């Protein structure tokens, strides 16, 4: 972003953090999932580490391509929750960063479904 008096730089890290928080606020999302293979591996070994869940790429055409990897609660209509993630997270992200909505492409990967036994 440019301004007559200086520059505002939004780091990938900041964008990922915003996306993480916005995603975790969506109804039906019970957690984020590891993104890379390596992360998946360490995640499997040490259950305590909290997965990153978000991947942000800046494409050559200036579009920010974000992918969120989520776990959902069992017993929900997955398509509707995914649609809510798309609209809600994009809205929050764009209103916080000031980026126009067509500069952001948001993908949702449903990584797993959290199942709980009755009475747990």
């Amino acid at each position, binding site marked *: 972003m440019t301004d007559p008096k200086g520059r505002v730089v939004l780091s990938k890290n900041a964008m990922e953090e915003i996306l993480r928080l916005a995603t975790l*606020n969506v*109804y039906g999302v*019970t*957690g984020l999932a590891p993104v890379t293979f390596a992360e998946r591996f360490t995640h499997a070994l040490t259950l305590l580490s909290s997965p990153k869940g978000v991947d942000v790429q800046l494409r050559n055409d200036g579009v920010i391509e974000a992918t969120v990897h989520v776990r959902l*609660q069992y*017993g*929900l209509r997955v*398509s*509707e929750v995914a649609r809510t993630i798309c*609209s809600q997270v994009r809205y929050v992200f764009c209103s916080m960063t000031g980026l126009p909505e067509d500069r952001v492409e948001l993908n949702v990967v449903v990584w797993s479904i959290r199942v709980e036994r009755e009475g747990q």
Partner: protein
Amino acid sequence: MKEIGYVELEELFKAGLASLESRKAYVNSLNVFPVPDGDTGTNMSLTLKTALEEADRAHPRTMKEFVSALSSGSLIGARGNSGVILSQIIRGMATAADNKLALTTADFTEMLVKATEVAYKAVVTPVEGTILTVVRRMAEGASGLHLEDYADYMTEIIRIGRQAVQETTSQLPALAEAHVVDAGGEGLVTLLEGMLMSFRGESPASARLTLENEPEEQVSQQELTYRYDTVMLVASDSLPEDEIRAKLTERGDSLVMASAGGLTKIHVHTNEPYDTIKFLMQFAPIREGRIEDMQYEADAYTAAKNPRADQSPATRAPVVGCSDQNVDRAYVVVSPGAGFDEIFRKLGAHIIVSGGDTMNPSTEAFLEPIKTCNAKSFMVFPNNKNIIMAARQAASLAGKDVQVLDSRHPVQAIAALVQLASCGPDDDAIAVANESIQATDFFSVTRATKDATVSGLTVHEGDFMLLVDDNLVGLGQSVEEALTCLKDSPVAWADKSLISIYRGSDCADTAFDALTETLATRFPDLEIQAYFGGQAFYDIVGSVE
């Protein structure tokens, strides 16, 4: 009534649905962003409707069969975020009722508690001020109640629920900014109110009982018998209730009286609010009062919801079948109004699907016509950012060569179709279409339905807003004033040569001509073209290319 079986429970949910249906427009209007595209009421009532249809189909013979059918039906039918949450609430209620033959009020409390538990499970960081808060508060309140009669019990639950709904405004900053209560919470309490009315033998179409200081909703089109919603707070708690009741119901209805702590609140619908005030002042001084014209509100809602009955999307043929079976490539477009239908037809669109804001076509609406058409390939213009998903889903299910373009407004599809008409068989049609979609900025003018603060601008209800590429850029007291803000909008004017504007079904002919003139003087370098669009909600939409 002290116990209910599964037959009664089904009746209760049906009454809840009827109540939701009757207040759908109001719940929809409780959205945070001022553009009229809220759909919480519609989503909740459709979710419950599917659930009940599913339960009906299962022909349940026990409580267990009924609640499990209802629960799975609500899951299948869940629409939108509020629908998903409602499905969890119903699922929770179902698990608690599962092993019972009949339900006492204590069982109902257990259902509410379980509903809260299940609904909260699906969210990591619950925020206060949502439908979740409302269901939790009702469950907590219910746990402290020892009322055996359902009517008394429900009255109390609803009172707690209403209170919780009122408080959502102060709990969530976004709601406070828009001066609204949470739509999902309102929907849930409305559902329970329907249940209460069923216990009382009333139908949701009759006057609603309310003790709250909120506007009475009437969404029917006909003239109201009693026009003014009158609420008076009288400084006495020992008024002759029978006398007042007799006198006020003589020339009014929906009377509610409630006394507490030296005050009595009297709520009545009447045509002579001045007589009501005069009459009440005989007994005690009036502390405060409020009079609302419900006819005005009803008209405003009717107008907002069915801008012009003959042109509303519902009465148009929803899908125009594939007009030419033997084309190589068929264009599928989503059109928001009669005028656009006509324009798209002239531009050679083969399949027209009606839809737009608040009226998103389903995946099936795309799938059906694509399946029945013999064209070799299809190009879909969703024309709304909320419809792109459904179109993509249809594309993946169709089993044919279907391309979905990223068009977010009908005017972008028009630009693309014009370009496509002049392109040869060897050109890359997708690239041509995408290029013209990218090059077309779209704008629209609509009325704010709520006070709100958006992108640093303070919007008042009734203001005309100019949206460019879906972002609010200007405000005005008239369509014209809002439209003049176009000049200052972040459009790259240097490489633009044409402005097209499309008249909505709410915009008068003469006013439209005047607008075209204004634009012509404002933008002397650009060509202005004007058409009839017939879209709802938006007085004007247009494109710059």
